[in-house]
C-alpha cells in the first residue's frame, strides 16, 4: 500500500463519527409512496372524483390500465430507491416493465378499436391532463430527489428517470379518478404520453438533479 493511501486511511479513520444508517430502500420507497398517496389523494378530494367512478372501476377497459398505472408508480418507486444502493444489479430497472407493458397494451388495443370504428376524430386535445400530470409530478419528484440524494445514486440519470416515471404514473393514476376521459386513445396520448415525456425529462436532468458530492463530479 502506498504511503499516501496509508495516510489517507489514517486521516479518514481517525475522525470517523457515528452515522445514522439509511433505512432500507423498501422502507424509503414506502414512505415516498405514502406521501404520494396523501398528496394525490388530497388533489382528487379537492377536485371531487367523477360520479361514475364505481361503474368505471367495474369496467375492465378502465380498471386494467388504471391498476397497471398504479403498479407502474409503485414498482418504479421501489426500483428508484433500490438503484441508490451501490452494488444493485441492472435487473432492477426492468421491475416496472410488466405493468408498463400491460398499461400500454390495454390502452393500445382500445385505441386501435376506437380508431377503426370512429376514425381519428376520436382523438381530442386535453392539455388539462398534461398540465395536471406535470404539475403533480413536480412536487412528487422534488421530494423524491431530496430522498434519493441522501443515498448514493451512482447512476443518476437512470435513477431519476425511474423516479420521474413513478411520480408521473402516480399523477396519472390520480387524474383518472376525477377526469372525464373515456376513450383509450385520449388516455394513451394525454396520460401515457405525458408520463413518457416526464420520464424523458427525468432521464435528461438526472445527472444534474442527483449529482451527489463525493460520488459524482
Amino acid at each position, binding site marked *: *500500500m*502506498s504511503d*499516501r*493511501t*496509508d495516510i*489517507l*486511511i*489514517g*486521516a*479518514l*479513520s*481517525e*475522525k*470517523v*463519527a*457515528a*452515522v*445514522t*444508517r*439509511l433505512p*432500507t430502500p423498501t422502507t424509503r420507497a414506502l414512505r415516498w409512496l405514502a406521501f404520494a398517496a396523501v398528496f394525490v389523494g388530497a388533489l382528487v378530494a379537492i377536485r371531487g372524483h367523477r360520479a361514475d367512478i364505481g361503474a368505471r372501476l367495474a369496467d375492465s377497459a378502465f380498471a386494467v390500465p388504471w391498476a397497471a398505472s398504479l403498479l407502474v408508480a409503485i414498482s418504479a418507486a421501489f426500483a428508484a430507491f433500490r438503484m*441508490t*444502493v*451501490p*452494488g*444493485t444489479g441492472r435487473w432492477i430497472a426492468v421491475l416496472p416493465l410488466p405493468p408498463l407493458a400491460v398499461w400500454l397494451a390495454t390502452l393500445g388495443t382500445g385505441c386501435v378499436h376506437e380508431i377503426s370504428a370512429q376514425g381519428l376524430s376520436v382523438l381530442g386535445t386535453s392539455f388539462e391532463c398534461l398540465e395536471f400530470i406535470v404539475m403533480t409530478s413536480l412536487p412528487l419528484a422534488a421530494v423524491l430527489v431530496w430522498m434519493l440524494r441522501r*443515498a*448514493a445514486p*451512482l447512476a443518476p440519470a437512470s435513477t431519476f428517470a425511474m423516479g420521474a416515471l413513478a411520480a408521473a404514473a402516480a399523477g396519472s393514476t390520480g387524474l383518472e379518478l376525477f377526469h372525464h376521459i373515456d376513450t383509450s386513445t385520449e388516455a394513451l396520448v394525454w396520460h401515457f404520453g405525458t408520463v413518457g415525456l416526464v420520464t424523458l425529462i427525468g432521464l435528461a436532468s438526472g445527472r444534474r438533479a442527483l449529482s*451527489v*458530492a*463525493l*460520488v*459524482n*463530479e
Partner: protein
Amino acid sequence: MEGDGWSELMARAQAGDAPAYRRFLSESAGFLRIIVARTGIPHDQVEDVVQETLISVHAIRHTYDPTRPIRPWLAAIARRRAIDWRRRRNSANSHEVALDDAAHETFADPEANRDKDKSEAAAAIRRWLAELPPGQRQAVELLKLRELSLNEAAAVSGQSVGALKVATHRAMLTLRKLWKRDEPG
C-alpha cells in the same frame, strides 16, 4: 479476513469505532485495487482512483446495510470512481493539442519565446506555495493540484467546506501578492 468480516467491521465503523474502520479500510484497499485495475485504469493511476474510492466510501458509509454483502457495494463505488476518472481525463484531453517538433522551435519575436521561462515559473509557484500558511497551502493542494471536490477535500483535511473556500480565496490573494512582489521589473 473475508467479506463477511468486513461487513461487521463496517457496521462497527458506522457506530464510530475508529480502529475497526481503519482495519476495514486497510484490508479493503487491496480488493479495491484489484477492481480498479480490472477497469483498465493505467497502472500508475490505480492508486489515485483507489484513494478517491476510499473517500467516497467514507462519505456514503451511512448507505451500507450490514445485512447485505459488502463486496458488491465496494466494487460498485470503485467502478463509479473509475468512470469519473476516465470522464475527467477525456475532458482534459479535449482541451489539449498535440504538438509536433516544429512547435518547439523558437522565433525571432521575443514575445514568442516566453515558453523558455516555464521551468522558472514552475519553480516560482513551488516557492510561493511553500510560503503560504499551512491551512491555505493544504486547501490549494487538495482543491487545485489534486483536483478534489470541496467535500472530498473537507473529508481529507477535516476542515469544513466553508473554511476550505475561505482558505482557497485567501491563498489566491496571497499568491497574487507574492507574484507581484517577485514580478521582474
